């Protein structure tokens, strides 16, 4: 199913800050289950993810996932982030600190002033079980280990059933020892969820373990790409 999905993205934008002007123009097409953007820090990888998620203003180009257009600046289509159904796992996870693990997962399934539908709770329960978070469902994020936080962030992004999953440096918030261990664990989790995924990393080992195709980015531009079979 996910092997059939295609992402077709071309995003261009200029970031202006007092100290630097930075232009990003990245185009990519992929029908791999998981695609990685690889590049040094400061290459604009995270910016690309935010542009795809709809979090940045003034993005030109297009974002299509499985034939659904989320952005097409030439045709005046620019869905707001809340309507894109693009799950984003932030580099340091951005878990809501005042909500428990379970409430973090419920967040995207509940609307303001309405009770959580029974179906949604079933989905939350299933995700808690799938990601081994049952035992910490009432815990606040600050009481979790690094690995648990990562799983909560992933489960929270998956809860509203996004059409595309974005992972921003999924392993960089972890210390080196844990990182090696969680690399394979994350790869297995991503295998199980079967969701078209775009991830960014500066670490070749991460990219090798997690993605089937790789796109290299430097200074906001694509400089090369490769598709390799995922390691067994």
């Amino acid at each position, binding site marked *: 199913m996910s092997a059939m999905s295609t992402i077709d993205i071309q995003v261009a934008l200029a970031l202006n800050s007092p100290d630097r002007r930075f232009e990003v123009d990245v185009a990519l097409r992929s029908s791999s289950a998981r695609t990685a953007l690889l590049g040094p820090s400061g290459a604009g990888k995270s910016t690309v993810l*935010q542009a795809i*998620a*709809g*979090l940045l203003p003034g993005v030109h180009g297009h974002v299509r996932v499985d034939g659904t257009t989320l952005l097409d600046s030439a045709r005046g289509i620019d869905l*707001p*982030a*809340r*309507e*894109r*159904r*693009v*799950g*984003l796992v*932030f580099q340091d996870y*951005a878990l*809501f*600190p*005042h909500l428990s693990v379970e409430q973090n997962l419920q*967040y*995207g399934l509940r*609307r*303001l002033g309405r009770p959580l539908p029974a179906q949604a709770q079933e989905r939350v329960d299933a995700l808690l079980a799938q990601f081994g978070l049952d035992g910490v469902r009432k815990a606040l994020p600050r009481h979790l280990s690094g690995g648990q936080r990562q799983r909560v962030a992933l489960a*929270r*992004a998956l*809860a*509203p059933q996004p059409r595309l999953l974005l992972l921003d440096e999924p392993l960089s918030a972890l210390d080196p020892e844990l990182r090696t261990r969680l690399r394979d664990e994350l790869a297995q989790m991503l295998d199980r969820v079967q969701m078209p995924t775009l991830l960014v990393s500066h670490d070749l080992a991460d990219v090798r373990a997690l993605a089937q195709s790789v796109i290299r980015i430097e200074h906001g531009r694509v400089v090369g790409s490769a598709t390799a079979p995922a390691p067994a």
Partner: protein
Amino acid sequence: MPGPLTPAMLQPLLLTLQVALLATLIAGVFGIGMGHWMARRRFAGQDVLDAVLVLPMVLPPTVLGYYLIVLVGRNGPLGPWLEAVFGIRLLFTWQGAVLASTVVGFPLVYKAARAAFEDVDPRFAQAARTLGSSEREVFWRLSLPLARRGIGAGLALTFARCMGEFGATLMVAGNLPGRTQTLSVAIYSAVQAGDDPLALTLTLIVSALCILLLVMANRLLRHRQG
């Protein structure tokens, strides 16, 4: 020696609590709204607007009182309209005392709310948007709960400031015993009339209440850091 609790003390005390509570509520709504709005935007002239909003904190209360008299008085731009539409008269009424306290208290809650909202990591809102949240949802489910301690401290300070409001209240609401005479105005009157036991009792009441509020505000702020 402080005197016993008599109607002469209870009346200003109850009126003060009523005025301070209402003023804190109104200043709270506007201060939180404005603080949130200012925390999320950057525009030309923002510093000037911020200065205007904080101005009541540094202007002499009599100057504020005078502005309010000019604004809501019978010949002011707002006075006749308020009376025609809402039937409220603000000069020499307890509602006028609420207005004075609201204006004086507003900067405290506005500044606290703005700082508290600016402290909330913007990535939480971004994460919420990717999870389907509207801006209204982001405010009620994330920004407000995450800023609650800073805002709570600001509200406690605002309430304390409103309890002690004197100058602007005296200008706008006057000093009518039983109608517009708040604690701080009653203390002034008692001293003028040579009624030291009354003045002392009221002074102790105000001091105790304000200490309580400041302790509350400190606790809220300490939790926020912890």
